[in-house]
């Protein structure tokens, strides 16, 4: 087993959030792959019923069941690291409710009857907080579950990665005690919520934010971080910049106005024709790129000012498939996120 230090040693539950469209599911999957090395087992949890994880790994839709979905890469230059395993689970409030009834009261069949009666509809309609508690409860249960065998054995999973709801909803989603305290001052649900909160609001849990280098996602990330910091005990994790477009030239080269005749000459020497118009068009594209890089730098600086570790993942132009996921995982490992 490798003993390399990472930024999140000791974290067992990684919550990944982000504004819609920033690729939080992709980053969560990449992080799970990155964590699965040195024989470690990682559970990747989907919470929104979109089956995004199954699509990313090119698998049929995930059931409510923990299934092995991928093998972690290990480290190519280290023959001792044989990689690890990624399991996946699509959790839904209904399944989580049945689990809860079974685990704590041995009442699965009553649960099924209640589900038929529409208890889950009831929970999500009347008290959305209840279904959030059930879903986060499943994640904390998996993070703390022991391996079968004699008591005192190790954990079944070395890490759990949760693809959580978007940034705009994350504070409510995780602050389970506050959500149910208005409803239940005492009683089993309250006790359950408190147990879940003890894990969520502990150093074992970190909430990572995914953002692109655009104004609105950056603003939402900063707002979300401020919201979580205001909740005592909650640990804000890293900021993962996704789909960054690296600068193709040095800042000095980008600052200089494009030299169209020089460009035209170079294009001619490269064997291209019609270089006059082409050079002008390419010069325009270069100028646009320079503006874009400037804007990205400004947004990156805003994210860095938040004072959390920042990781940066490149845009994968051809679309993210399994090989793309492995690329992202390697980046996260190299940058110390896992």
């Amino acid at each position, binding site marked *: 087993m490798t003993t390399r230090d990472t930024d999140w040693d000791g974290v067992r539950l990684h919550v990944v959030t982000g*504004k*819609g*469209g*920033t690729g939080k599911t992709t980053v969560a999957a990449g992080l799970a792959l990155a964590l699965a090395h040195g024989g470690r087992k990682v559970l990747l949890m989907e919470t929104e*019923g979109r089956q995004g994880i199954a699509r990313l790994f090119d698998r049929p839709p995930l059931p409510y069941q923990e299934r092995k979905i991928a093998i972690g890469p290990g480290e190519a230059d280290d023959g001792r690291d044989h990689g690890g395993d990624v399991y996946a689970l699509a959790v839904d409030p209904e399944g989580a409710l049945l689990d809860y*009834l079974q685990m704590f*009261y041995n*009442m699965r069949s*009553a*649960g099924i*009857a*209640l589900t038929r*009666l*529409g208890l889950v*509809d*009831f929970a*999500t*309609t*009347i*008290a*959305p*907080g*209840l279904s959030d508690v059930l879903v986060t409860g499943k994640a904390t249960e998996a993070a703390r579950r022991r391996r079968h065998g004699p008591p005192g054995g190790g954990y079944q999973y070395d890490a759990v990665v949760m693809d959580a709801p*978007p940034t*705009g*909803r994350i504070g409510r989603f995780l602050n389970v005690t506050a*959500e149910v305290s*208005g*409803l*239940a001052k*005492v*009683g*089993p*649900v309250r006790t359950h919520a408190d147990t879940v909160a003890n894990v969520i609001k502990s150093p074992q849990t970190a909430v990572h934010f995914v953002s692109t280098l*655009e*104004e*609105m*996602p950056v*603003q939402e990330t900063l707002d979300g971080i401020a919201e979580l910091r205001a909740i005592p005990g909650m640990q804000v994790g890293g900021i993962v910049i996704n789909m960054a477009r690296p600068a*193709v*030239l040095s800042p000095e*080269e980008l600052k200089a106005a494009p*030299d169209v005749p*020089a*460009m035209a000459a*170079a294009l001619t*020497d*490269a*064997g291209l024709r019609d270089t006059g118009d082409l050079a002008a*068009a*390419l*010069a*325009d*594209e*270069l100028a*646009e790129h320079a503006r874009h890089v400037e*804007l990205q730098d400004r947004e990156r600086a805003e994210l860095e000012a938040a004072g959390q570790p920042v990781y940066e993942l490149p845009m994968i*132009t*051809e*679309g993210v498939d399994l090989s793309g996921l492995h690329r992202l995982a390697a980046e996260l490992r190299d940058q110390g996120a896992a």
Partner: protein
Amino acid sequence: MTGNPLLDMDRLIDDRRTRIIVCCGSGGVGKTTAAAAIGLRAAERGREVCVLTVDPARRLAQSMGLTSLDNTPRIVEGVEGKAGGSLHAMMLDMKRTFDEVVEAHADPARAAQILANPFYQSLSSGFAGTQEYMAMEKLGQLRRSNEWDLIVVDTPPSRSALDFLDAPERLGRFLDGRLIRVLTAPVKASRPFGRVLNAGLSVMTGALTKLLGGQVLRDAQTFVTAFDTMFGGFRERAEATYRLLQTPGTSFLVVAAPEPDALREASYFVERLDEERMPLAGLILNRVHAAGSAGLSAARSLAAAETLDGIIQNEPVASAPAAGYSVAAATLRLHAERMSLGERERRVSRAFTSAYPAVPVVEVPALPVDVHDLEGLRRIGEALADADGQRS
């Protein structure tokens, strides 16, 4: 780029019979911005417009000159055009909207009882579902007030972007549900039930008590009993708004970015709207990376960059054109990347357009910066209306 008809935005917003435009799509595709841009363009072309938004980014509110948006339509200053239109904007406050509905449907004593119930408080400020009901409710109110001749609404960023269509049905299913009867039964009658039925019920309530705790169950029972009398009116209103969405005065616009997830969601929408007989006006394909004017393929561009690399390596270091060559090579790589991104976007978009060849489409190019002011919204409006006539 596609064989689909062009979405004629100006015809849609100039048509006085268009009274409601609903923008839907998955999160992060620029739905709210599109709704605001359509509202502004319609106002500047002479309509009396109200934009109803659910959760706008602060900067978008600021772009309309509003420091904050609340549950009352606020006038947006700076609307131009001689056509004499106006633009109002408001943000849905779901708790306040819900409170108003309760107050309208129950006598003061009962209303106070409901408003104080913990279940009501969770329901009215919770996210799942409530926002959808209340967006529908607000839309219905605005439409009935007849103060605006066009209402543009963007839909909540739901887990499933279709939730708002299900709002009336979910409410109905819930109200007619057996669970409600199970919940209310123990309060109404503890003895008169036969032995068997009673046993079944006590298993249920036993499970519920274990799950929720006795106090929660009592609160739920009080809530359901108090709410019972106003359920009917509540549901009628939701159904009336639902029917309003099916009338010819309503048009749906599906907003998507040229990415697989967003377009998959758009496909669901198109099919669902069709099933529900909701009038679809077309698809806004937002944030498209234009090919640019350089007619050079990715492959040739990369080949040329490699040729330049070769020249640089073989030239003496001090040679004059080397710097120009390396800039040109980098620019060619940049261009190649842009072309492959454009190619990928076209490929995923084609998968959508070939499945729905009759759906009108308009493309809006990706902008390097976010919208900060009315001028920015105006530019998006121009792109939405294809004002520079790129496609015609």
